[in-house]
Every structure is written in C-alpha cells, then in structure tokens.
C-alpha cells in the first residue's frame, strides 16, 4: 500500500486538484446556473496565493485563504450582476469573465509575471492537507445533495418557475451558488499553484473549461461522486493506457460528445438508473388499490407524458 502510494503520489495529487476544479464547475451546473466562472476563480485564487507567497512573504495557509476568499468575493459580485441572464448567455458571460482574468494576468506586468507567469511559489502543502480540504468541500456539497436541501436545489435547476411557486427563493440560490463556486475554484487554484510552484495565464484558458467539463460529464453532474469518478478516470486513464496519453484530447473530445448525447447523467446517472430499475422490478406491484380505482394503476394507460417529453416531437417537423 505504502509502496503503491509513493509510486503514485503525483497522480493522486493530480486527481485531487482536478476534482476540486471540477467541483467548482459542477456545483453551478447542479443548481442550473450555467457558469464556467470557476475557471476564472481558479486563476484569481492561484495568482493571488502565488503573488502573496512570493512577493509579500505571506505564509502558505494565509495565502491560500486570501486567494480563496478573494475569488469567492469576486465571483459573488459577478453573480450579483449576471445571475438573471439565462442559459447560454450566462455561460458565455462567465467564459468571458474567465478569459478576462487571463488577459489581466498577461498584462499584470511584474506583479503577475506577464505571459510567462509566476515561478518558485512552492508552498508547504502536502497531499494530506489537500485530502483534508477536499473532504471539507465534499462534506459541504454532500449536505447540499441530501434531503430537503437536495430536493430544492433539484427543483431550482429543473424548473425555476415551479421552485418559486413552491416558495423557494430562486434568486438567492443562484447568487449563493456563485459565491460557493468561486470559493471552491479559488481554493483549487491556490492549492494547485502552491503545490506545483507555478501558474501561467495560458493555464486559465478554454482548455481548462474543457477538462472540467470532461470530468463532470463523464462522471455525472448530479453529485460530487460523479465528479470523483470523472476525475479518477481522466487522471488515471493516461497512466494505465499509454495510447490514451498520446491521443488525450481526441479521446476526451469523443467521450464528452458521446456522454452529452447518450449519457446526460454520466456514469453515475447510468448506475442510479440501473439500481432504480432493479429495485422497481423487485418491488411487488403496488398494493392493490380499491376496485373502483382500478383504472389508476400506473401503466394502465399509454403514458402521454413520454411523448410530451421529447423535444424532437415538437421540433421534428413534418418529416
């Protein structure tokens, strides 16, 4: 066990930092906020921590904390401004936000090191520290997936108007999501930077959005567990199969496209579905309702919702 860990410490570390980044994008998706601001927050957190650590002699943990808080604060402000935008528009605005962070870093002069970034920011962070922080974040997210909180978040995502009609303050959920996503993204950036000792503007780009999406889409966007599955797959696959390392981007592209088409719930969604079906088959038919109500038995009539619920039926035209 110990020998395995020593041999794989770097990959374990990469899995954990990738997971943190992915979680900062997954949380908003789960609330139905199509935000990629987590990537920009990764940059803000990473740069802040690196600058404080290398230029102002701030210790590792205060630097991480300040980077995290600054990213969270800025992301919350962003949310205040744009939380009312819908779908794609919000997505593009947050991509623009993330790319502006990169442009600002490129033009930051000696403070941010320009296009070559910051070097030598090797803080005193161990894998155990990362694991503890990750456990903290995951615990918080797990609470938000459980019980009434989880149900309300699902409703805010699936049907905001219904959520409001049930008394849920949709706007507040959306704004707080920006805060939480910014904190997680900032933490991911600060920790990753002080672990690797370097950050460059080129890292905070579209590629990072793709990596985070790959993790979430493969694993499943409904739970932190999905992100964990995804993070493990994409960090370990290249080490196990060497041809994967060569063709990494192409394979990820295929996986993301395939998952978007066939597995919107990811691996986790598939597993949940199978478990539900298996249970449904084991469950005896629902206790027989009184005779007069016989017509209400599920499946007693061809279910019209199924036809209603495919977009293709309204968009399929007269073909």
């Amino acid at each position, binding site marked *: 066990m110990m020998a395995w860990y020593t041999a794989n410490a770097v990959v374990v570390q990469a899995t954990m930092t990738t997971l943190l980044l992915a979680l900062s994008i997954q949380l908003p998706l789960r609330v139905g906020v199509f935000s990629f601001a987590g990537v920009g927050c990764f940059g803000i957190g990473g740069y802040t921590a690196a600058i404080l650590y290398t230029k102002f002699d701030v210790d590792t943990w205060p630097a991480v904390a300040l980077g995290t808080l600054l990213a969270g604060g800025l992301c919350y402000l962003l949310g205040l401004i744009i939380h009312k935008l819908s779908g794609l528009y919000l997505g593009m605005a947050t991509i623009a936000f993330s790319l502006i962070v990169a442009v600002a870093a490129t033009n930051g002069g000696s403070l941010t090191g320009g296009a070559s970034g910051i070097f030598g920011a090797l803080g005193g962070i161990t894998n155990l520290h990362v694991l503890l922080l990750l456990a903290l974040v995951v615990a918080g997210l797990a609470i938000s997936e459980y*019980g*009434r909180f989880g*149900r*309300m978040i*699902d*409703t805010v995502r*699936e*049907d905001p*108007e*219904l*959520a*409001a*009609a*049930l*008394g*849920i*303050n*949709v*706007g507040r959920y959306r704004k707080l999501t920006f805060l939480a996503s910014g904190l997680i993204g900032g933490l991911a950036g600060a920790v990753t930077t002080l672990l690797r000792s370097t950050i460059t503007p080129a890292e905070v780009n579209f590629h990072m959005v793709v990596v985070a999406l790959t993790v979430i889409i493969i694993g499943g966007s*409904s739970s932190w567990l999905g992100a964990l599955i995804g993070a493990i797959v994409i960090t370990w696959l290249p080490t196990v199969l060497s041809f994967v390392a060569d063709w990494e981007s192409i394979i990820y592209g295929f996986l993301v496209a395939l998952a978007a088409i066939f597995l919107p719930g990811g691996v986790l969604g598939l597993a949940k579905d199978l478990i*539900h079906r298996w249970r*449904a088959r084991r*469950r005896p038919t*629902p*206790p027989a*309702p009184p005779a*007069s*109500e016989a*017509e*209400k*038995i*599920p*499946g*007693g*009539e061809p*279910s*019209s*919702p*199924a036809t*209603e*619920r495919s977009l293709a039926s309204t968009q399929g035209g007269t073909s």
Partner: protein
Amino acid sequence: MSRSQNDSADPRMIFEADDVAVHFGGVKAVDGLTFGLPEGKIIGILGPNGSGKSTLVGAITRHVPLTRGTLKFLGKDYAGDEPHLVPHRGIARTFQTVRLLEERNVLENVLLGTDSLTAGGRAARRLGQERAEQAMARTGCDHLAKVRPDELSYGNRRRVEIARAIAMEPKLLLLDEPTAGMGRAEKEEISTLMLSLRAEGLTQLIVEHDVQMMVDTCDSLLAMNFGKLIVEGEPREVVRNPAVQEAYLGKQAVKHA
C-alpha cells in the same frame, strides 16, 4: 350547504383583485378585472382558450408582472411580492401541464410542497413527512410513494401535483385545469376531493373546461372573454347567460343547465 347568492352577507373575502390588468405589448391578456374570493368557497373561472384564465392565475401567483391594479390576500396588498413569497402567504397552485421532478419519487415530489415552508430540523422533517403522507392519502396516490413520475399514468401525475399543493397547507388553492385528460370517474374523484377540502374551509379557485364539472363543484363562476369579466354569479345562471353561451359555447345548447 346552500349556494346562497347573497353577496353582502357572505363571509369575508380572502382574496381581492381590483382593476387587475396584464398586457403583453399590445395584447391585453387580462384587462381590468375586479373580483373577490369569499373564504371557504370554490370559485370557477370559465372562458374560451386565450381568454386570459391562465394569465390571471400567473398574476395571482405573481409570476406575471401586472400592468396595473392591486391584489389583496387576507386584506394585505401583495402585488409587489416576488413570486417565491406568495406561497409563504398561503397561496398554492397546480399547473396546466403537470410539473414534477422526474428523477424523484412521488413521496419526494409531495415533500417538496413542505420543504421551503417548514424550518429545518428533525421535528420539522417529521411534520413535513406527516403532511405529505396525509396529502397523498387524500388524493389517492399513497400506494405510489416509491414510484417515479415517469412511470405514472397521466391522471396519477395530476394527483401527485394536487397532493404537493395540498401538502403546502394553503389558505387559497389555485387549480389550473386539474382534470384535463382525465376520465369521468377520475374527474368525479377530483370533484369529491375539492368538496371535502371546502368542508375544511379551504378556498379554491379552479380554471377548467368541463362545464358540467364546474356546475357540479363550484359555488360561483366567473366567466371571462378577451381578458375581461363578462358575467359572474351562481353557476347555473352563468352558464345559461346568453353572453357566456355566445363567447364560450358558441351556438351549442347546454344540456345540463
């Protein structure tokens, strides 16, 4: 229970709309409605498609911005409320097309009615669970607790939605075409359920196309056309009114009236 037409002697109005209008650009979906809902009664809204019924429901729940007018619930003007505050005042609704969380089972869908209206904590959770179970028993979907909505028949999906609204324990329940797509027997069950809720004092506003059901269930009817109120009063009289027949029923006679 007699259906008295004696407005002045009626109990207090739980809800009052005064000169409510909703215009979308040039379209006057709702145009100057003034009416009240007496406490503990079932009031039906009748009108052809596009006459503004669903827009009115949206206005009452504050999903649709008002062009002018005031809305009062329990004597308080709430027209400035954001939509999510309305359920906290005691107004619950169902939707014209059933809206459920497809990934959650029936019990959880009904629990959603209690989630944001009860505080956290163990006692509240138990209370919510009880309310949800009662609501499911009343609407006859208690045996479906663990089933997912996508495995349900259309009528049962409707029941789950009504159960969710009842679990909110509202003072005013808005039902937007609750029996659409149901058979006669199922419609009668919904009708019976509404009458038993009225017996407990729940005020209900129902939008429905089935005239017969409306006449059988409602205490009074409001007939709308082109966003305006054309007639209101005792159901049989409203249905017999020539203006209503003209607008809603065309030349067809109403056999049951």
